[in-house]
């Protein structure tokens, strides 16, 4: 790998890169499919994840239809779906459980993580630290090419007789291991995507530590790079634990171990006979399966292992977004980022605390309530660095000169929704309050405010911001704003009322809420939410249309369309393999906007200081070079 990097330096580092075709005869497959160019890999992550975004969104709308109009045929597609999924055109209880499981899994593991980490990690890191490519380009390629097979393996579950995984995105045992082949595909799929994450993350760390441009110190890197760096550390520490837990659940399913399975379980007859134990007749027809072997396992162990990864995973999903938003806000407010170092330390604090708060998912799980007190306090502490970030973003736009581009609107929406998502988190952080709202729609509202309102708006912001550098074309701003307004309004109309359903006691993951008398009054609200969700879902086609339209008819992007400071804007408008056509040298931090001594309101990191040396030294984070 070392020699490959050296080779890349040799061929790309020094000469001009206006035209690459003449000295690169790379086959189509090597250039667009199995490419080692970080930018191509980033685009691949983007396309794959946007595909999965629509898959996961479709699942969500099917779930919403059932909650609003239980038992009524799904419009348009209800009657063409197979009988294993629907009866009389309406989703069956079994299919509903599969849908909610895969909606969560797809959105988290195949949309948010690959977009936030896979796409922006790959695209931004080498460009923003001024280098030609990742430290380990081939590993980078492998990390993408695990994603499509992993995703397809999971979706194949829908075509099994027993259906796809149906134990929730958390896959809690004993339900998980005692269900069928769908769960197996779910486990294998997560195992593979975990590998992909780890490969990407080690690569990000190696790249950031070793390949920064001349003069670029760690504390001169843009927040996006910092956030991705810390995210990479979270991934390398957390994901192996998930891999271990997955292996244990697979072993419980197939190797007759019982990490998570107590003895003498009476579980429903599974469709695969590999499970141990005896089948006993029950009633007239129902087969029952009594697990006789093994025993002594503890179901709660899985929850500890799963959340030890999956709580940091929440930060894996949100931290890159926080980095992106910081950069976008500073650029469009034309102001230095408020409290640059405080922002970095807040990210570090969130990452560290993120590893000691997992138990707040388990307040009602049956673990020792003493741990409830411990995790309640650590969870409440993690609200502090989140609050610090909010205040610093507000400080950033204070006395700025804010341009309302589509990218910046999405970044501002991130702040707006993250305030609500953060505040609703305080409710469930309090263990006694969580008793009542745990596993209700209050939790669903919270996670969507953080992951859709937070992570996804930040991702949209990043797409609008870096698209010109990705494809050399500007996205259409007017379509971008339309996409933003529709998304933002209908996002809030969809998810805000869910808080109230939760306070009303509406449980999550229930196929038909209206068998409960106390929930019957909420059907009209559920219908409202469903209508809003459908509009929200269809609004996303504006983004897809915008991308396709702009690729063909979009304005040609200049090198630095936003007059930004960070290094990616030093690269050609549509950089080829190798990225930069000039020798990059860094003289200052990335947020030197509206410097009083300059005529323009930006001062790029790579621009050589002019005039007397004094000007340079007045800037807060000046270069160490001479």
């Amino acid at each position, binding site marked *: 790998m070392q020699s490959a990097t050296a080779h890349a330096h040799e061929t790309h580092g020094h000469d001009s890169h206006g035209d690459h075709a003449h000295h690169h005869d790379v086959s189509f497959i090597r250039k667009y499919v199995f490419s080692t160019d970080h930018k191509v890999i980033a685009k691949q992550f983007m396309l794959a994840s946007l595909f999965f975004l629509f898959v996961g969104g479709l699942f969500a709308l099917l779930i919403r239809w059932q909650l609003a109009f239980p038992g009524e045929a799904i419009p348009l597609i209800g009657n063409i779906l197979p009988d294993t999924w629907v009866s009389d055109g309406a989703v069956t209880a079994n299919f509903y459980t599969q849908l909610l499981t895969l909606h969560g899994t797809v959105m988290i593991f195949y949309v948010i993580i690959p977009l936030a980490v896979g796409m922006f990690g790959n695209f931004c890191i080498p460009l923003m630290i001024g280098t030609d490519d990742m430290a380990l380009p081939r590993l980078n390629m492998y990390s993408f090419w695990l994603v499509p097979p992993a995703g397809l393996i999971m979706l194949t579950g829908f075509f099994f007789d027993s259906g796809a995984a149906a134990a929730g995105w958390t896959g809690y045992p004993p339900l998980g291991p005692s269900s069928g082949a769908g769960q197996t595909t779910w486990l294998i799929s997560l195992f593979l995507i975990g590998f992909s994450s780890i490969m990407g993350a080690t690569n990000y760390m190696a790249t950031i530590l070793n390949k920064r441009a001349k003069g670029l110190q760690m504390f001169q890197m843009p927040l996006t790079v910092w956030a991705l760096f810390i995210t990479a550390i979270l991934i390398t520490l957390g994901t192996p634990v998930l891999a271990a837990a997955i292996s244990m659940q697979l072993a419980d399913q197939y190797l007759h171990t019982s990490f998570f399975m107590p003895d003498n379980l009476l579980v429903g007859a599974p469709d695969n006979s590999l499970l141990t134990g005896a089948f006993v007749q029950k009633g007239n027809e129902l087969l029952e399966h009594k697990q006789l072997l093994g025993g002594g396992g503890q179901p709660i162990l899985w929850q500890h292992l799963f959340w030890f990864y999956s709580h940091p995973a929440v930060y894996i999903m949100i931290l890159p977004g926080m980095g992106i938003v910081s950069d976008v806000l500073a650029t469009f407010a034309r102001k230095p980022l*408020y409290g*640059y170092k405080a922002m970095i330390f807040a990210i570090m604090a969130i990452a560290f605390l993120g590893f000691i708060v997992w138990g707040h998912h388990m307040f009602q799980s049956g673990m020792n309530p003493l741990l409830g007190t411990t995790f309640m306090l650590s969870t409440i502490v993690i609200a502090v660095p989140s609050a610090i970030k909010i205040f610093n973003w507000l400080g950033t736009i204070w006395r700025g000169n804010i341009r309302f581009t589509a990218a910046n609107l999405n970044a501002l929406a991130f702040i707006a929704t993250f305030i609500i998502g953060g505040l609703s988190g305080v409710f469930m952080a309090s263990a006694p*309050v969580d008793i009542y709202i745990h596993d209700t729609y209050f939790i669903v509202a919270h996670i969507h405010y953080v992951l859709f309102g937070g992570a996804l708006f930040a991702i949209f912001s990043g797409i609008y911001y870096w698209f010109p550098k990705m494809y050399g074309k500007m996205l259409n701003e007017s379509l971008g704003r339309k996409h933003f307004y529709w998304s933002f309004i209908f996002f809030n109309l969809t998810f805000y009322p869910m808080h109230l359903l939760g306070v009303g006691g509406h449980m999550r993951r229930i196929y038909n809420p209206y068998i409960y008398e106390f929930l019957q009054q909420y059907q*009209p609200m559920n219908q409202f939410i469903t209508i809003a969700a459908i509009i929200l879902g269809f609004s996303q086609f504006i983004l897809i249309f915008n991308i396709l339209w702009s690729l063909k008819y979009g304005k040609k992007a200049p090198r630095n369309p936003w007059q930004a400071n960070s290094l990616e804007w030093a690269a050609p408008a549509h950089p080829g393999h190798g990225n930069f056509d000039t020798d990059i040298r860094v003289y200052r931090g990335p947020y030197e906007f509206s410097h009083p001594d300059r005529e323009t309101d930006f001062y790029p990191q790579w621009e050589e200081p002019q005039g007397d040396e004094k000007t340079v030294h007045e800037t807060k984070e000046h270069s160490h070079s001479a």
Partner: protein
Amino acid sequence: MSFDFSKAMEWAYKDMLTFFPENVSTFGGELDSLFAMIYYASVAIFFITYAILIAFIIMYRHQEGRKAYYYHGNNLMEFTWTLLPTFLFAGIGLWSDDAWTKSKYAYRVPNPDVTIDVLGYQSGFGWQFRYPGPDGVFGNKVRNQISSANPFGIDSNDVHGKDDLVIISPGGARPVEVHLPINKNVLVNLSSNDVLHSFFLPNFRVKQDAVPGQWIKVWFNGTKAGRYEIACAELCGSGHYNMRGLLIMDSQQDYDAWLDQQYKLVKPELSAPVSDSTAVAAVASDSTTTKN
């Protein structure tokens, strides 16, 4: 397909706190007021931060020829907005702890007036209940005697187990129905024989996962007679939504009458009063955790 517009818009004109179902347990009020406290603090923070955000967006919108303020931040401000939320949030945490220990810590579970066993089950989806019977003593539970005919694994050799009253779902769409007395400390020993369930009594603000292999104590004290719903809050399979049960809170007198009637229905052969085992009733506790 009907659509009631004013009900659909409830979220827009009703205060969040009005959505709570009626509270009928002794500690429920405390949990609700904790929620309310966090809610009022959140609403205040929400309006302050949104006012700032919107004001800045309007005041500092792009204007030709104006230059933004070149300013990197201020450590005093950073300290301020680190410490203020720390005190606020730590206060919420410490304030919460008493309610938490009261509802969950073993040493704060009051002496029970009534003890029952509850199992969630997956084959058919519902709840099974066990009352100790006239002798007031539960039969010992033995894990290897668990079967669908004997879900609690009552030891066939234990004389106290012979009169235990087990109430199961009546079948069909009818939910299982159990009675408990008001103004009494009720202790529920909760478990499952298959997958995780979560015993949720919305009106009592009670929620606790049922974990196979483990008996977990849940307690509450109901304050108002009436008919309340039991729900499952942990995904347990495709029939998860269908685990509805009914809990009827009675006066002691009505409760005794109901128990008597159930006993005659379920165990007619034993319904003659058990002679001297009533004396043992005072010691009504069994070893709740058997294995694991």
